[in-house]
């Protein structure tokens, strides 16, 4: 499925939940927030290739 990470499109093999997705992308949940179909979603949220998924890395310095 295709998702967006910090504005860039990324293709991954399917993931069943937001937490799975972060694991597949090797991103730390502590440093990211995820929007599914425009809404913030918890780690347990189920996702499918039809969903629009946006991963945002939100922990930065300064």
């Amino acid at each position, binding site marked *: 499925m295709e998702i967006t990470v910090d504005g860039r499109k990324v293709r991954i093999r399917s993931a069943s939940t937001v937490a799975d997705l972060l694991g597949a992308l090797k991103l730390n949940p502590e440093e990211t927030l995820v929007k599914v179909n425009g809404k913030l979603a*918890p780690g347990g949220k189920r996702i499918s290739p039809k969903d629009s998924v946006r991963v945002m890395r939100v922990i930065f310095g300064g």
Partner: protein
Amino acid sequence: MAKLAASSKCFKCGKPAAISLNYMQQDLCQSHFTEMFESRVKRTAREYRMLRKGEKIAVALSGGKDSCVMLHMLHGISKSLPIKLFAITIDEGIAGYRCRTLHVAKRECRMLKVPLKVISFHKEFGKTLDSLLKKKGVERSCSFCGVMRRYLLNKFARKMKADKIAIGHNSDDVAQTVMMNLMRNEPERLGRFGPLSGAIEDELFITRIKPLFLTPERDIAAYAIMKGIEIEFSECPYARHAFRQYVREMLNKAEEKYPATKLRIVRAFLAQQKLMQDGVRMRRGKEKILRCKSCGEPCSREVCSLCTMLERS
């Protein structure tokens, strides 16, 4: 690794959750999250007596998510507790970064009708951070910049007759600072660190308050998104050179594996701080706050760190 009960339903009301908070092992919906967030900030302010009726508060506003969310929170509090707010933004002169956050700072102040004062390194010190670091090297960029910013904030807040300076440090910043102090063996520095500014009292030092002291950085980002506070999640170009960056990544790795680690570091620090401050207070009888020979600002040595750094003496 700690497997968390990810139910994707709000722990409080059972509606669809918007966020997983691993440090408290809860998923919350948007309204229960924002309610928890706001009451935690208010509780922190109350617990450490950060705000008093009638005070004038200088908000250190970088235009990043932390200080913008803090400004919104203080603005909200000012509706029930009469405090007067104004913002100070420091323009360090970082090409391609500061102009964007400066734009955000101006926009938020205009929206909340909070007066804003912009102060630049270039005007005050005759050089931008960029030009200074060309000479000094980028390795210690954040300590240079920090000293310069604190200096200007204190000086201008005093000039504007502020009672307090509000700083947007979050609990991640605090955990990092505590860990960095341990790793560098600089325990005495922590004596001056805390939710309410340090152990040193002097009429030239304006008390610093940190209403986000117990609020995790990720929660602040989530709150900003939920409240529609438009913030760019961008990074200062010098940050990657800093030791802090290393410690941040280290702590976030620990947090992923052992949730709530960062907040436990903050709690442990607060518990120990009382003891440390007693130590500082005992020493303070012998130690005096001096005036810098070069610029007249308060400091603990003959020449302050800023003047030493800029070789102004």
